[in-house]
């Protein structure tokens, strides 16, 4: 039995067998053969090609019915490459002429092809060298007898109930966690605020990240206990410990049932203050969860998942279909956030200055959209068209200047005029709001509020920018602190600005779903919360027994704290009230 400590996510506990991801780190051996060995080597190579082809075929068969059309097309293209004389034929020629092993011959030929692709001018085709390496790696795995555990469309193992162990997970990989009914995951890298953590929360899944080195210690099928609340994992626990954790698991489930009784209750504080509890969603699949907790609409719909993991941006028609489905499915207000790409959320297809979007201070979110109008415009058209079918609003991420807002509003106005002249229906009074995530925007909220119909505070980024901490950087994220008085003062500033301009202010970052902050935010005057649906009932429980008349004074003291430690002490006092 061994315990490891990291950052925990989620209240729950998961118990299950480990599934250690092994990605493409393949070392290709090189050795020379004598002439008598050549025939055998070619035979071994051909056998590996056959096995690879069989595994592709098995994969095609196992594709779920609702898999994107592109998956099958890709597998077919890869199978064709596998049989292509320019890959396998040439590799056999190299085995024969240079008297080398199959692995080396294949990698040599793959490198030759990759070099040609790298010289291509067309960025799309240049990226296709990845296909060559992908096919090559699959054959190499068969040649070397490497068992591959990857989290992609090429994996057809049953992952249900397993606990994924990995160095790190890409957003694309987390999608498979969702679809394959994985019980939990643990990673070496990451923090409570990384994208992976946010996904885990939305899946109601306990997880532990930032475990440094766990993927080297844990082997496949080790029994793991993942305690999301304490940030502990236990490898191969003793019977006693296992029993104790199973009992806790039962208790947590009982608490969840208890919370369910709050679903229908109106969300109101003891002193009669109405509080709107909305949900954050990513796809139409999340609507079910939102209905279960009786959320008052969607305060944040992250559209980037429609754009990620594919070769080109979705067309206007495709976006319209999705937005319509969500607007009519939710049946209440839906704030559609325009494309928010940057940091750990990246697009697969290329566009000019793509490099810059990986920096937190780079070309991301609305900046990216304004400089790539060909991506922005179809999205705005689709949102506007969807507004004819439901209560849809437009939410602009990461606005930082007045000019930027004016620019966006001008584009929306122009788009409306175009739709009108085309005779296409839309809601002419659609609301346009801005996300306050940059300190400059928080400070200028009073001015921005004159131009916008609502404000939404994105605390994850607001904290990152206010405290100058890259939230995906493991080395500094201990400094990330929602209770830094600077952050709290900015939040307060934005709420005041909204009150003054008489427009709604909501808060949609992780803070909204953390019950430790519920009273604090209520005391600051927040009336609209948007969070992952899984937290909503917990937060509601806090709201139902809060009295805002008593909170204001104590919250004022938290705001005037000298440092985060003092703020935390005062917050604890407030929560004990």
């Amino acid at each position, binding site marked *: 039995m061994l315990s490891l400590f990291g950052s925990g996510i989620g209240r729950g506990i998961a118990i299950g067998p480990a599934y250690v991801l092994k990605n493409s780190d393949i070392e290709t051996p090189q050795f020379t053969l004598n002439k008598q060995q050549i025939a055998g080597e070619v035979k071994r190579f051909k056998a590996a090609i056959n096995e690879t082809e069989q595994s592709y075929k098995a994969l095609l068969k196992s594709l779920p019915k609702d898999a994107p059309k592109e998956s099958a097309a890709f597998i077919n293209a890869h199978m064709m490459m596998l049989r292509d004389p320019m890959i396998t034929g040439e590799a056999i020629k190299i085995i024969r002429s240079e008297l080398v092993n199959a692995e080396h011959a294949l990698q040599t030929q793959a490198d030759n092809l990759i070099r040609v692709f790298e010289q291509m001018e*067309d960025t799309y085709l240049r990226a296709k060298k990845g296909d060559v390496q992908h096919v090559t790696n699959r054959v190499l795995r068969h040649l070397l007898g490497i068992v591959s555990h990857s989290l992609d469309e090429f994996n057809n193992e049953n992952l249900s109930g397993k606990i994924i162990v990995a160095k790190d997970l890409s957003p694309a990989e987390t999608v498979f966690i969702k679809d394959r009914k994985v019980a939990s995951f643990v990673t070496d890298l990451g923090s409570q605020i990384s994208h992976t953590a946010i996904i885990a929360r939305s899946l109601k899944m306990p997880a532990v990240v930032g475990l440094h080195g766990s993927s080297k210690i844990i082997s496949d099928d080790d029994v793991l206990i993942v305690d999301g609340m304490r940030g502990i994992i236990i490898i191969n626990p003793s019977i006693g410990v296992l029993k104790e954790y199973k009992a806790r698991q039962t208790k947590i489930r009982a608490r969840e049932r208890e919370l369910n009784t709050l679903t229908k209750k109106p969300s109101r504080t003891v002193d009669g203050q109405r509080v709107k509890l909305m949900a954050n969603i990513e796809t139409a699949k999340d609507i079910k969860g939102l209905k279960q907790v009786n959320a008052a609409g969607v305060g944040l719909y992250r559209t980037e998942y429609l754009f990620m993991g594919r070769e080109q941006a979705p067309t206007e028609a495709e976006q319209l279909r999705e937005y319509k489905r969500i607007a009519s499915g939710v049946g209440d207000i839906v704030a559609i956030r325009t494309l928010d790409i940057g940091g750990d959320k990246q697009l697969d297809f290329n566009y000019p200055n793509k490099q810059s979007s990986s920096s937190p201070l780079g070309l991301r979110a609305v900046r990216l959209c304004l400089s790539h109008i060909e991506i922005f415009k179809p999205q705005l058209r689709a949102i506007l068209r969807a507004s004819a079918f439901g209560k849809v609003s437009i939410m602009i991420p990461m606005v930082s200047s007045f000019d930027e807002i004016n620019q966006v509003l001008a584009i929306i106005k122009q788009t409306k005029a175009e739709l009108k002249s085309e005779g296409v229906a839309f809601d002419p009074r659609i609301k346009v709001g801005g996300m306050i995530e940059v300190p400059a925007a928080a400070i200028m909220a009073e001015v921005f509020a004159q131009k916008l119909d609502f404000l939404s505070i994105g605390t994850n980024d607001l904290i990152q920018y206010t405290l100058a901490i890259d939230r995906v950087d493991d080395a500094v994220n201990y400094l990330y602190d929602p209770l830094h008085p600077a952050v709290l003062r900015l939040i307060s500033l934005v709420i005041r600005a909204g009150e003054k301009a008489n427009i709604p202010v909501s808060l949609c970052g992780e803070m909204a779903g953390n019950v430790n902050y519920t009273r604090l935010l209520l005391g600051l005057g927040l009336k609209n919360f948007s969070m992952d649906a899984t937290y909503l009932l917990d937060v509601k429980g806090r709201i139902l027994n809060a009295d805002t008349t008593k909170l204001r004074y104590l919250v004022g003291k938290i705001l005037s704290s000298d440092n985060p430690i003092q703020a935390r002490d005062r917050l604890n006092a407030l929560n004990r009230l």
Partner: protein
Amino acid sequence: MQEQPIEIINKLGLHARASAKLVNTAAQFSSRIELEFGEQKADAKSIMSVMMLAASKGSKMLIRTDGDDEQEAMNAITTLINNYFDEQE
């Protein structure tokens, strides 16, 4: 032998999926089918060979078919290219 010039009109050019369709179509015929683009020549029955032409939208190339079913092969290939490889755009 048949010979015919053609322009690639689909948005992404001869990328992986379009190349795959072209190769699948070419494989149905016994004739030798060759694409000539600038100074490069490609065997239309080899996906790597076709992809390596790096023919993007607007590329003008020459199709050459040679064999018993050269006319049918030419028709099938030109139809596929002119139909945007049955993609949306």
